[in-house]
């Protein structure tokens, strides 16, 4: 199956937006997502092929309507939970705890 991530040669995406030349993270969550990914790879929680495969499985419409680092975040959730580094329940509980503390207000 050809994944939507295999973008090479597909036509219709229009001109390259050259004005979007920034190399810096656009938000703190992007920087954190990037760093946690690098560190999870370094810790051996998954390898780079698994990481890419996880992003390539994102449904096409979702892939094209979410941002670049959302793909990375999706892949982190997918791999860390499916490999049992932490459970879905632990994850949802932690999100609820953080939400209750208002930790995500800045997002």
């Amino acid at each position, binding site marked *: 199956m050809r994944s939507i*991530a*295999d*973008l*090479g*040669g*597909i*036509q219709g*995406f*229009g*001109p*390259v*937006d*050259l004005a*979007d*030349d920034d*190399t*810096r*993270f656009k*938000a*703190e*969550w992007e*920087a*954190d*997502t*990037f*760093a*946690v990914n690098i*560190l*999870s*790879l370094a*810790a051996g*929680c998954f390898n*780079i*092929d698994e990481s*890419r495969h996880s*992003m390539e499985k994102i449904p096409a419409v979702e892939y*094209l309507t979410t941002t*670049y680092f*959302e793909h990375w*975040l999706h892949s*982190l*959730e997918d791999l*860390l*939970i499916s490999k049992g*580094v*932490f459970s*879905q*329940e*632990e*994850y*949802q509980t*932690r*999100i*609820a705890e*953080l*939400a209750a503390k208002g*930790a*995500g207000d*800045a*997002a």
Partner: protein
Amino acid sequence: MGHDDHTLPPSSLALRIKAIETLMVEKGKIDPGAVTEIVDIFQNKLGPRIGARVVARAWSDSAFKKRLLADGTGALKEMGIGGLQGEAMHILENTSAVHNVIVCTLCSCYPWTVLGLPPSWYKSAAYRSRIVIEPRAVLAEFGLQISEDCEVRVYDSNAEIRYMVLPERPTGTDGWTEEQLEALVTRDSMIGVSVLTDVVVG
């Protein structure tokens, strides 16, 4: 994942990554403080000035250039530049007959160790999809016209191999020091979406 996904409202992106980060620290997979350190390295310490140093060295030292083109990873190591995930580095030399440009069609693989983080457009669907099928048209959008008698080669990066372009040395720079040359080298010239302008002597 199961139905549980829908028992909570969609959580903000910041909450989701914070939840992952704190769990990873608790599980001993990530050291406290490591996230800040990684962000600092990528955002502030790595960047295209490193690549510019490599280019200036190659222009100034033909033996180094030969080693760089034959074994990019090894030659970069001589300069203390190493792969972060052990990926191999290949350096692509631009000449009057061949113009090279890099992309990662599948995601965003980029030569971090020499150029730092990629610009947003490098990660965009438009660049990734089009540079391989109509490179001359895309390069023209960057203001770069490649003459018809010059071959354009597009290199698609991957997890194992990262590429960097060695731009042509501008004319009018004979006798310049490496430091002077380094200042001429732009990020885009090392991606291959621009070339360096010749220096007008006089």
